[in-house]
């Protein structure tokens, strides 16, 4: 496995970094998070239509750029650094991946190009925080009505669930896994936007009170849908880990900048050994997470087996979650009094660190995922 980035990959990373430093500045994030949808449509337009980021990991045959998961994580890392508020994670990391992993070819052909171009937003309804895909954990069910389907169910926390134009809904159909596409404007679909503690990411409760669907709303069925959704959650976990990694890095960078200029007891705060060691520990956690996130991205880009992917996701997500929380916490601490003010940015990262910590499994749950194959199931 070669960890060197290609020149193209470096270009993607660096141009994203430069673009977002402007386009998703602290002021821009603070404006976007006050919006109805929680994001700036103009920025989304540029990301989707102009920069083409939405097509990154979607095959060329389906209107994408056909790049690998590595490029997707490089973008997510940069977006995480800047707390970008867009439906990128829900539309691309979740919904597009779900289509690629769990939908039939005709459905992919029909829907992926619209996601790749950024013209449509979508999301995937997760069983709470996406950790449990066993059929009996499913919270929706479908029944056939002639050539149509009727969906019932409730999803408590769907990312961008109120604004997404298309919702992918996993449901139990005649005791089998099935994946449905539901238009955001469908009748009897109730979407309740929730107020989130992390204002940079929106969540909605989604209820399907007998939503009637046409035949082609069924995107796939059978056990491969279950497995595909499991894989989707693992891919999305790695992408989210990359986002967390970017956030952690920015917490360290903000702290280095602040402590370099803040003077206490006649010397820069950054010259105190305890502060230096804390920052060094932040870096160690970040680089450990980075190694594993980059490794997981490479595994993910190579068409991994489901078990291998699942372990990579557990490693990457648990380390990135812990690094992000630690770095956000220490960013607040080392900013001193201003660290817990609204005006300074550490609090935004801190809230996102907590908000992302349990998606696709809390760290203890992911540890158990790793422990099981080594030690046998928990008692």
């Amino acid at each position, binding site marked *: 496995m070669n960890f060197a980035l290609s020149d193209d990959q470096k270009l993607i990373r660096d141009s994203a970094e430069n673009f977002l430093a402007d386009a998703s500045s602290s002021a821009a994030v603070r404006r976007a998070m006050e919006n109805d949808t929680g994001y700036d449509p103009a920025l989304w337009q540029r990301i989707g239509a102009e920069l083409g980021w939405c097509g990154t990991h979607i095959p060329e045959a389906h209107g994408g750029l056909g790049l690998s998961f590595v490029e997707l994580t490089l973008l997510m890392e940069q977006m995480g650094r800047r707390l970008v508020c867009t439906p990128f994670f829900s539309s691309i990391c979740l919904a597009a991946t779900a289509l690629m992993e769990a939908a039939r070819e005709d459905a992919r052909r029909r829907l992926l190009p619209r996601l790749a171009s950024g013209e449509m937003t979508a999301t995937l309804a997760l069983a*709470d*925080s996406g950790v449990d895909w066993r059929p009996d954990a499913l919270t929706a069910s479908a029944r056939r009505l002639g050539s149509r389907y009727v969906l019932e169910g409730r999803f*408590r*926390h769907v990312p961008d669930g109120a604004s997404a134009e298309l919702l992918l809904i996993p449901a139990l159909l005649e005791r089998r896994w099935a994946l449905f596409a539901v238009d955001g404007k469908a009748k009897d679909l109730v979407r309740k936007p*929730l*107020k*989130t*503690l*992390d204002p940079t990411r929106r*969540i909605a409760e989604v209820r399907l009170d007998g939503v009637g669907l046409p035949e082609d709303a069924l995107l796939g069925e059978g056990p491969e849908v279950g497995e595909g959704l499991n894989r989707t959650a693992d891919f999305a976990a790695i992408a989210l880990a990359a986002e967390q990694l970017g956030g952690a890095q920015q917490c360290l960078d903000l702290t280095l900048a602040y402590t370099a200029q*803040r*003077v*206490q*007891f*006649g*010397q*820069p705060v950054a*010259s*105190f*050994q*305890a*502060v230096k060691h804390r920052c060094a520990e932040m870096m160690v956690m970040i680089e450990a997470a980075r190694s594993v996130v980059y490794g997981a991205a490479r595994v993910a880009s190579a068409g991994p087996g489901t078990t291998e992917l699942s372990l990579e996701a557990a490693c990457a997500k648990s380390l990135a979650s812990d690094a992000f929380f630690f770095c956000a*916490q220490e960013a*607040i*601490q080392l900013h*001193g*009094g201003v*660290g*817990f*003010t*609204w*005006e300074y940015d550490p*609090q935004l990262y*801190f*809230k996102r660190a*907590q*908000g992302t*910590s*349990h*998606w696709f499994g*809390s760290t*203890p*749950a992911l540890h158990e995922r790793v422990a099981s194959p080594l030690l046998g199931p928990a008692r």
Partner: protein
Amino acid sequence: MKMSDDEIFRLEVARWLRAHLRGEFECLRHRGGPGDEDAHPELRKRWERELARGGWTCVGWPREHGGRGLSIAQQVIFHEEYARAGGPGRMGHIGEGLIGPTLIAYGTEAQKRRFLPGIVAGTEFWCQGYSEPNAGSDLANVQTRARRDPATGEWVLHGQKVWTSLAHESQWIFVVARSDPESKGNRGLSFLLVPLDQPGIAIRPIKQLTGTAEFNEVFFDGARTAAENIVGQPGEGWAIAMALLGFERGVSTLGQQMHFAHELDLVCEMARVNGAASDPAIRARIAQAWIGLKVMRYNALRMLAGAQDGHLRREAMMYKYYWSNWHRELGKLAMDVLGPDGDVVSDDPTRTRLQQLFLFTRADTIYAGTNEIQLNIIAERALGMPKEPRFEKGKS
């Protein structure tokens, strides 16, 4: 079996609180704690006067100064019962706990006569002006200046204080200001009592990470106070200020702990209800939190026993570091118990309380001496380790 005096006293406190913390005051239960300081300020001021009518303010002060003159054991009982009853955060605590004892120890007779009764009666409220924006942990780096007006003898102040809670709700602020313009560090400072309601003072709230504003910046632009409103002599400000901080650790810690215990109860209850109690990692952390409560309780009892021989001992020097980190970790634990539900702001009062706990406790390890300062103090003062070298002046 005959009840001891302390047991009788405990019943008396509990009975009084049951009888009075009701009606209009009912809604104050468990409110106004750390991070919730600006809940119902007017009502909580009325509550202070209610307490005063019952003789329950300044319970540890000597009777000659209007206090109740309770023994330490009885003060502990009072604070425990107050917390157990869900008594609200005390609007008067800076007067009662900080400036009052300071005036009793260092004030003139006139100052005592002027200021103590208002504190005891719950009619005059105080806030503190210690920190400055460019000082932070370096408390002695005071840049607020006070000069004498040769005409009136009044003190005239220019400068800025920060992290002042309840400034809007108070009548008086005590300020450490540089009265000797040539001085540096902790020399040449004076400790002044300044009325807040005057044109030379402006108050600006500081918005916190919660979106609310519990702290303020206070700007002094030619603010004035009478010549006699100095505690101690000019130049003695640092000594007075340090003595005042010493008063902050007292029996009220036991009351604070009852508050913490209540918060841990909420976390346990949430874990039992939402199933987090089946997660071994959560179980271990809740156990540790419970053990930490034991530590704080026994530690406070050691402090009370040790206070009798007069000097600040190790258990007192580690207390702020211990409780603030314990509390911050409790906030994180609360969120991890909530799990995905913690992401969403709802009208469930327990959930809201736990989310607030998570956010507000971030300040605990920063204000009143950051973790880093606390560890320095422990190393240098409790363990006698040498000071670190400093950059020489002029170099960097």
